[in-house]
């Protein structure tokens, strides 16, 4: 049962992932990404990361994806052209094919330090994550928050400057 679910979810993820990068229409690839996110969420749930799966859906799909779709929609006028650079496809394919093979080899050959015995039991992780975030990982937590703030301000700053300049053409 587990294997079937896993296989299904893996297939969905990978296929939609391929569609993201190969479809001509940008909206199509955006939606393919959406599907891929869902797939990843499912895989996360299989891994016992319940909080993470929820977060994945909330933030990635609910936040990033919406943002991206807004961006795509708003830039529609400029993007009705060829999205694909043909000249680059073949070399990229070759190199990435090689890279993929290397990675596969590495993954399969590396002596992963796995936990002996059966997998961990599925238990809710929220409380534990919360405790971890505020005890051991409090520094990265605060830094991330600062980072978010910086990103916010930075994005606004990046756009406001240009706008300002354009809005006052009469000025010196």
């Amino acid at each position, binding site marked *: 049962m587990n294997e079937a679910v896993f296989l299904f979810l893996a297939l969905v993820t990978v296929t939609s992932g391929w569609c993201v990068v190969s479809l001509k229409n940008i909206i199509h690839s955006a939606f393919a990404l959406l599907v891929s996110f869902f797939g990843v969420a499912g*895989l996360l749930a299989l891994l016992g990361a319940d909080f993470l799966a929820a977060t994945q859906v909330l933030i990635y799909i609910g936040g990033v994806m919406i943002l991206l779709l807004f961006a795509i929609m708003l830039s529609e006028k400029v993007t009705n052209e060829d999205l694909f650079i043909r000249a680059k496809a073949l070399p990229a394919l070759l190199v990435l094919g090689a890279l993929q093979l290397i990675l596969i080899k590495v993954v399969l050959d590396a002596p992963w330090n796995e936990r002996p015995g059966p997998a961990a039991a599925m238990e809710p992780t929220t409380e534990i994550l919360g405790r971890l975030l505020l005890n051991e990982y409090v520094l990265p937590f605060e830094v991330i928050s600062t980072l978010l703030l910086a990103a916010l301000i930075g994005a606004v700053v990046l756009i406001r400057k240009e706008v300002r300049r354009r809005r006052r053409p009469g000025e010196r």
Partner: protein
Amino acid sequence: MIGLESYLLIGTALFCFGMFGILTRRNAISILLGFELIMNAAGLNFAAFAHFSDKTIHGQVFTLFIIALAAAESVVILALIIAVYQKMRTIHVDEMDSLKG
């Protein structure tokens, strides 16, 4: 048998696809899509490690951070794309070669 390797392989596949997208796509937003794929792959890897190793939960913390980071990054990238568009009037990355030497 579903093991660590399986999840990792999915991660590598997603990574390579994302890389392909970054290298190949013309539209800057399409590159962003590829970039999001890569982030997902990384997050999945961490969660897999978390599940299959001794320190159970700690890997998931990393995944959390990755999600937050990716969100912030996408915001910034979009702002950048807007700024670049205002300067260069295009979002096709193969036309952005003013740093050409």
